[in-house]
């Protein structure tokens, strides 16, 4: 505890924040203290106005589960990783729109001082922006000005080796706390007003576990999935009591002996089977189901020694939110040998009923643009596959099974001398968040056309060591990699429009009620597109590549669009 507070105060000094607060402390104004004292000394019946007055101060509002379920009613706030439980990453704000976006300008930039890839999606609640940065950083900003309110950093052990950078994709918020997963596999609850640690629970990072995902708060639980598919971990999804940090349930994504699915692993391979769960899932309050996607089986690019489908790797899981019990699963890539984690945000889509007067005919779907290059639409009540269509360059499957699921060709496996397969190891898409716009009824996703040569490189399992079993390279003869923003019609699986970037990007995508789609590029541009046509209407050069997804919020009636790029968080608005 002492160590943590030392880290934090040192960082505040490093950032020169002392000048922002008198003497490095945060003094509430005398007026508010006096008001609080008055309230505290009054009896309940006359205290009521005090409560109302204090509740009227927006920064004191609690984020309840009800608010999260009904997030569409407060589009000024962005309270979950994808903006709502459905995963649409759609903002109901339309102040910035097709007609005026050309005048949009930068409002503030916050420099995190972090190096590497900044993958965070900020949350905004009642005027305060909460976000994360590399190396276990979390911070709160005044969302109007970008001025910091608090910062937290948990010391990063020197011997961690996360596969893909010291990254983090964001926070969850519930009640008066925000929740952070750390690289050394801790789940930390921070006081939303001060950044102070409320509770802290740990998994052992030495065996390769880490957290990079933005957790999802559901009911009174903090749901989080683990990273470590490159280390031969046994993947899991955990749910912690938001108040106490007590673990309420754990779902192992690789079934143990006696559990259904265990037979899909050869011998003891399940023990190091991978199937991490490192991207944020979605939640259907009607059925109380959490939809959470899983990653590659381990070793990631070598199937030898783990014969079978390797459940529940590369799958979408429907779990009961209260118990973690699985209702259904759908596996996108069976027995994966190309590192095609299915860890893309599963987006809930409801199609309108045929008859406007009843719900009959309305479909409750879940759509996922998968890393393996296919766009899948499932019935989210049953997990039944409805369609699977390629949305990028793929060569690994020429046939589909009886369910309509693409099946890997015999010759798609990596070989010692190397074998070219499309998409490459990075996939047609990856962790970058997609968006579904209910106005255009289009699904927008960042896509990449790239083929790789997959070559086996057998490695023995050793706890905490890399466990790939293969390597991949660009082909010397290959075309340059190409990157796109694609608009997919989920009803047909066809590409409605595409915009080709100068090179592939890792940016996520946001859609808004203003008829706009926002995304960033590898060259540092933040771009606003017309959602209907894909025409770029506005852009701003941020000076650093984008690895994050944009979001939108409003404070004092003014809309902002924010995105992380380079080492900074940028907020844009109308002049």
């Amino acid at each position, binding site marked *: 505890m002492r160590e943590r507070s030392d880290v934090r105060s040192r960082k505040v000094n490093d950032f020169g924040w002392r000048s922002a607060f008198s003497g490095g402390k945060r003094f509430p104004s005398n007026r508010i203290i006096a008001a609080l004292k008055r309230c505290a000394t009054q009896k309940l019946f006359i205290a009521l106005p005090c409560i109302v007055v204090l509740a009227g101060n927006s920064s004191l509002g609690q984020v309840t589960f009800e608010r999260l379920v009904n997030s569409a009613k407060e589009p000024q706030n962005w309270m979950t990783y994808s903006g709502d439980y459905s995963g649409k990453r759609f903002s109901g704000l339309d102040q910035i729109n097709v007609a005026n976006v050309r005048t949009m300008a930068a409002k503030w930039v916050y420099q995190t001082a972090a190096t*590497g890839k900044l993958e965070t999606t900020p949350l905004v609640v009642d005027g305060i922006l909460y976000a994360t940065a590399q190396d276990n950083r979390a911070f709160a900003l005044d969302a109007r000005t970008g001025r910091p309110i608090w910062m937290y950093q948990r010391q990063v052990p020197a011997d961690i*080796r*996360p*596969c*893909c*950078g010291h990254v983090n994709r964001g926070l969850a918020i519930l009640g008066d706390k925000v929740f952070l997963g750390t690289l050394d596999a801790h789940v930390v609850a921070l006081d939303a007003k001060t950044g102070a640690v409320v509770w802290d629970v740990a998994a052992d990072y*030495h065996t390769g576990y880490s957290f990079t995902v933005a957790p999802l708060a559901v009911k009174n639980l903090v749901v989080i999935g683990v990273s470590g598919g*490159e*280390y031969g971990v046994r993947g899991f999804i955990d749910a912690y009591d938001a108040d106490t940090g007590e673990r309420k349930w754990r779902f192992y994504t690789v079934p143990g002996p006696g559990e259904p699915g265990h037979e899909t692993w050869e011998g003891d391979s399940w023990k190091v089977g991978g199937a991490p769960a490192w991207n944020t899932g979605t939640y259907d309050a009607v059925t109380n189901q959490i939809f959470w996607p899983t990653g590659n089986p381990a070793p990631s690019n070598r199937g030898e020694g783990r014969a079978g489908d390797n459940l529940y790797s590369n799958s979408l899981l429907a779990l009961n939110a209260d118990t973690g019990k699985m209702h259904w699963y759908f596996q996108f890539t069976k027995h994966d040998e190309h590192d095609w984690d299915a860890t893309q945000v599963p987006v809930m889509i409801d199609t309108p009923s045929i008859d406007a007067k009843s719900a009959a005919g309305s479909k409750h779907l879940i759509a996922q643009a998968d890393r393996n290059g296919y766009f899948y639409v499932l019935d989210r009540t049953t997990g039944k596959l409805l369609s699977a269509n390629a949305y990028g360059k793929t060569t690994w499957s020429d046939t589909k099974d009886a369910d309509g699921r693409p099946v890997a060709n015999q010759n798609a496996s990596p070989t010692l001398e*190397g074998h070219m397969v499309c998409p490459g190891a*990075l996939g047609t898409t990856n962790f970058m968040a997609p968006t579904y716009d209910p106005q255009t009824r289009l699904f927008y996703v960042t896509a990449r056309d*790239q083929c790789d040569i997959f*070559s086996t*490189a*057998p*490695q023995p399992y*050793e*706890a*905490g*060591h*890399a466990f*790939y079993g*293969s*390597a*991949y*390279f*660009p*082909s*010397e*003869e*290959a*075309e*340059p*990699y190409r990157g796109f923003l694609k608009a997919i019609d989920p009803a047909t699986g066809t590409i409605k429009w595409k915009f080709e*970037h*100068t*090179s*592939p990007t890792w940016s996520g995508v946001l859609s808004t009620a203003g008829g706009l789609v926002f995304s960033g*590029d*590898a*060259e*540092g*541009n933040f*771009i606003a597109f017309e959602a209907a046509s894909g025409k*770029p209407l506005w*852009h701003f*050069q941020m000076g650093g*590549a984008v690895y994050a997804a944009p979001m939108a919020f409003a404070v004092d009636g003014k809309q902002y669009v924010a995105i992380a790029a380079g080492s900074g968080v940028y907020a844009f608005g109308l002049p």
Partner: protein
Amino acid sequence: MFRRWRVGLAAFVFLGVAVYGQNPLKDDPKAAKAGEYEFRINCALCHGLGAHGGGRGPDLTRAVKKHTHSDADMFQVISNGIPGTAMPANGTNGQGVGMTDEEIWQIITYIRSQEVKAPAQAQGNAAHGKELFYGDANCSLCHMVAGKGGRLGPELTGVGGSRTREAIIDSVRNPSRRLAWGLTEATKEFPEEYESVTAVTADGKKITGVTMNEDSFSVQIMDAGEHIHLLEKDKLQSFQKSRESAMPKYDVDVLSDKELEDIVAYLVKVGAK
């Protein structure tokens, strides 16, 4: 389990680096085999399968390397990278997960085992190669070596120290093929690779040259006169890119195998410095 491993590693580092600065796995064939797989996962993206050099990384099969001589040098370079080059520090390249000290020594053992098999170096006449480079072969019209020469093509001072003889010869015989060498952005400073471009400005002026950089909205072009043009794409009448290199194809009737060998020898000599 973990503690035992840590103690083992500490002893390893102590013996391997702190005291002797030598590879504790030197000439161990088992370590070389493990190193081969580690190399594929962590290094081959740039340095190629078999360490023969790739689109960006130098050929490591040469006995004489530009940045490293001893195994200890190599350990330091793999651990910390080479500032100012595309060589990243261990664990920061987005490829592979970062290696343990033991794994780095395995890779060094593997690289040393490959050196033995490396082909003989260029045998041409470097002095004649220099004459050709700055003279009849016209290389220096577009390429600079040690501060002398043109600017339109890549600067070549280091190329002889970082590319295989075969790669240099192929670049001269088939200049356009190299343009198609795709690499992930993690190891690229710029998205362009000397693509040829033709732009027509609003007032009808035609500009041809190579891209210095480009994004979706602007492009920076150098023309044959070494003028830099800073253009906004939406203000152009037309903009076309080609992966046909601006460099002419040097067939054997233009440049004989012997002459090309001499130029390679010159570049290798300069690049070794």
